[in-house]
Every structure is written in structure tokens, then in C-alpha cells.
């Protein structure tokens, strides 16, 4: 039997990322990023949020094109369901952040991915947001992410991929750890 070595390609440029890590360690001020989103109320619980500019590497950047997120609540909340609920957007954010991590770590570890899918569930008792029970928190009590990964790697290596992706995820960190939030009115 002959095998042909095809280079692992998950579409992640790890050389560039490792280069950036090296460069930014020597220039820590350039590593300071600020991400921004602009939100406008439309009507009811419907709002539209756009992201475009952000700062980092000592300068202002723009996405190739602005991206928008429509947020609303479903009809059972007496709303018009013109978009995802904000908690669902958070779940999307968590899943996509972890998935990006899986791809990057797999590339670095020379693991070829074939498919990566995940389902994220957040459990919430809405008595909290309805203000009906002061002992119930507003947010998720438990978030469960279930990955299904097909890759040229052992089960143990895939588990390690997912564990490392959590360790390096911005959104996972923000969801699992306290974050200071200041809400001001101008």
C-alpha cells in the first residue's frame, strides 16, 4: 500500500498567526484591540446591529463590508419574530468562536478536518427576565455545546482539539468568567 502525503489544509494560516504572536509579544501595545457594534432600535423588540470598524495593531480597520444582525423575539413573546433572540446570537457567537478555534488548533497540530458541526443549547428560566421571581437569574444557567467532528485523528486528539479551542476562545472566556460591563447614556 502506498500513501500520499497531502499537506493538512483547514484553510487556516497558522504561520501568520504564529508570526503575529511573536511580533505582538514584542510590541504589546499593538495587541490592544477594540471591537465595536452599533445598534439601532427599529420597533417593538426588533433592533438591528451593525459591525464595521474596529481598532487594533495601532490603527483603525474596517471589515470588507459591514455586517448586520437582526434581533427580535418570537411570537410567543408577543413580538414579531423579525430576527434571532439576543441569547441565540450569543449561542451563535460561542459556537462560531469555538469552531474557529477548533480549525486553528487542528491546523497547528496537523490534523485534517473533514467536518465540524455543533449544537449549542442554553437553558434559561424566563421568570427571571419577566421579573416574576427574584431568585431566578436572567441569563443561562447552563450552556451545553455538542461537537461532532470528522477528522483524520484519534478520538483522544479530537477531544484535545476541542479542549484547547475552549482554552483559547474569547467568547468562551466571556461567557464563563465575570466581565465588567459599563452601560452609559450620552
Amino acid at each position, binding site marked *: 500500500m502506498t500513501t500520499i502525503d497531502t499537506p493538512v489544509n483547514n484553510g487556516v494560516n497558522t504561520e501568520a498567526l504564529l508570526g503575529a504572536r511573536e511580533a505582538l509579544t514584542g510590541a504589546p501595545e499593538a495587541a490592544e484591540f477594540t471591537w465595536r457594534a452599533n445598534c439601532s432600535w427599529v420597533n417593538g423588540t426588533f433592533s438591528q446591529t451593525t459591525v464595521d470598524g474596529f481598532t487594533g495593531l495601532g490603527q483603525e480597520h474596517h471589515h470588507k463590508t459591514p455586517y448586520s444582525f437582526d434581533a427580535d423575539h418570537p411570537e410567543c413573546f408577543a413580538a414579531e419574530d423579525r430576527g434571532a433572540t439576543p441569547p441565540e446570537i450569543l449561542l451563535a457567537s460561542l459556537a462560531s468562536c469555538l469552531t474557529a478555534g477548533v480549525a486553528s488548533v487542528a491546523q497547528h497540530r496537523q490534523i485534517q478536518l473533514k467536518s465540524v458541526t455543533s449544537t449549542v443549547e442554553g437553558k434559561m428560566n424566563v421568570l427571571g427576565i419577566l421579573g416574576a421571581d427574584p431568585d431566578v437569574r436572567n441569563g443561562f444557567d447552563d450552556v451545553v455545546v455538542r461537537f461532532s467532528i470528522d477528522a483524520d485523528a484519534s478520538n483522544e486528539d479530537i*477531544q484535545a482539539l476541542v479542549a484547547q479551542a*475552549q482554552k483559547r476562545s474569547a467568547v468562551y472566556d466571556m461567557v464563563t*468568567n465575570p466581565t465588567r460591563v459599563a452601560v452609559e447614556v450620552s
Partner: protein
Amino acid sequence: MTAPATHVPAVIIGAGHAGLAMSRRLTERSIPHVVLERGEVANSWRTERWDSLRLLTPNWQNQLPGMGYSGDDPDGYMTVRDLADFISAYAATISAPVQTHTTVTRVRANDRGYTVETDHGTWTCDGVVIASGGSNIANVPSAAAQVPASVAQFTAMTYRCPNDLDDRAVLVVGASATGVQLTDEISRSGRAVMMSVGEHVRMPRSYRGRDVFWWMDKAGILDEGRDDLDDLVRARHVPSPQLIGTPEHRSIDLNALTDRGVEVVGRLGRISDGVAQFSGSLANVCKLADLKMNRLLQRFDDWVEAAAVSEVGPARRFDATRVPSPARLEIDLAEDDIGTVVWATGYRPDYSWLDVPVFDRKGRIRHDGGVVDAPGLYVTGLNVLRRRRSSFISGAERDSEELSEHLDRHLRLNATS
């Protein structure tokens, strides 16, 4: 009045095992030197560690240049008192020129070398070896400032024994060797203990009938050099493994502590209004530690196969870490009757006296394997200084050999210039 400075080719700062090993090497090379020690030989071990502490490494492994363990318990683990005596015996054996009770107050560069100022005189020299160790100051996170006044706080440097604590529950923050050992001891004293766990290194005390340090030694892990390591900065700052040296050679992992009734919670985030918040990432840090331990055991197994070793027990794997479900995310210190917080959150070196521009932005000395970024200046006795073994007593043997050779060359060049 100021006494004139004494000139000596080399000054070693610190008479612990690393400084004394360097002293031995300089003596071998006929390089006159002095070892300046702020207290007695092995001062940190004598005065800054808790009572029950024993070394993590087995006695047979604690080999220093010119002296090894000669007692009747080669597989045992020295108490700190025995270790301090061992290091003192070493100082005597090698006739180290130690000047005790001499605290270095400043080291600065001069025209041809360095000036070392102390509370008992000044030395000038061509070379300085910093051997004051990496564990001079206990790290305490900023959350400590928010601990209510009714709660006592200790660090791994101020804690001595459970009797120092009142009878209320105890929160131990940190899950390195220190964290698990203090949690275990305080739990055994009958107090309720909660343990805050971030990233940690899980390791069995023994595997296939041998001590884990036997394996790391034989399988070549301790001798992996700094250039062999994927991420040297990380390797230097990884928490110490969850090990304890006891006469029973027992393992001490989170499962063992949970079985004792210890409540495990995530990494401490912040404390506000008397409520401590913990990270929801506990399951992942436990998973990472389990996976990493299994990779280490696999390396041992692979080595057994490759080296065709027969006198070891069968391969095995340990139970996954049992994470409490749900782990608590918030604890009201008063409601849970927490009377003491013990910060087992690591140590850092004290270089406040070093007035030479050799620091990086994190306050760490810039060096390559102990050769500091200033001619004639060396640092030794730090984690993974030149190889993994550098973190342990036996690392001083080769580290001192190599660094003394470098220093010797420097002194010869200096003499001819």
C-alpha cells in the same frame, strides 16, 4: 563611614542548592568567589515554607555536584527540615565560602563589572550569579483586596499548619502542588474546605510500580532542553504538578480531594460584596489536565516498549476527574462560613535590588538559559532554566556545569581585555 569595597572575581547571591552548586563549580575551576546569603544556608526552606512540606522528588534523585543522598530511604521524600540540613551539609562538604546574614541591597554595573552592595559591606566583581530563586514573593490576585475583613488571609509563605486557622471553613485558591497539599492537610484537620481550581497539572505519584520522577528521568523528559520545548515561556510558568511527598507514596488528585469532602469550584474570578465568583470553565481545565496526564503516561508506555523494559507493572489509565455538576459559580463567603482564604497562587522572584537594565516588560530577567542579557551576569535555580530538570534540585548539576563554563570564559576574556 563607608568601608572600601572588596574585590572578588565572582559573587553568588543566595546559598540555596543552586547557588552552592555554582560555588562548587567555581571552586573546581579555581575561581575565587563569595556566596552572599541574607539568612542561613537554605534560608527560604527554613523560614518561608509550611511545616509539613516535603520535596516532590525522591531522595535518590537529589544529586548535587559532588554530593548525593546517602541516607537509608532513597525512595522517600525529604521534609523541608531534612532538605535544609542536606543543603547545609552540602555547603560544609564543598567548603563553600558563604557569608551568611548578608542581604544584598543593590547590584549595579561599574566600569569593568559589577558592584554588589549589602548591609555588611560592598563587593566589586567581574561576574554575578543570581541564585536567589524564583519563589521570593507569594503571588496574590487583585481579588484579595475585596476579601471582607472578617476573613483571615494566608499565602503559601505565611501559612504554617491548620492550627493557625480558626474552625470556620477555608477557601484554598490554586491547584498546584501547593494548593492540593494545603487543601488536603486542612481538610484532614476537620475543617470544611473549598478549592478554587484553574489550569493545573495532574500526575500520579507512581505509575506501573515506579515513582513518576523515575519515569520522567528514564524516559528523558527531565532532560528535554529549552530548545526542544514548543513553548518555553509557557513551560516556565506552568503550575507545579499535583503531587505530594508522603511516606505512603500516595497520589493527590482532585478526585482524592473530592472523596475527602472537599468542594471543588472553578478559577476565582472576582469577589464583590462578600460574594466570590468562580469561572464556569472548571470542566474544561479538568479535561485538559486529564488529557495531558494521559499523553504523559503514553510517553512512558512508549518508552517501555522502545527500551524493552520488563521490570515495570502493567500499563493503566486513571479515572477521569469528576467535576461537580453543577459546580457552584458563586459563594457568599459569610453564608458559607468561610473564615480563611489561603492563596496558593504561585510565587515570583524578588529582583528589587537588581539595578541593571535586564528586565522584560513583565519584570522578568531577559536571559538565555541563565546567561543574562548583560555580560558577566547569570541567573540560576529557576523553572526550566536550561532544561526541564532545572526546576528540581538535580537540575543544578548540569546547569551549574554549563553556566560556570560560560562564566569562566567571560572572566578570562575580561582579564585579557
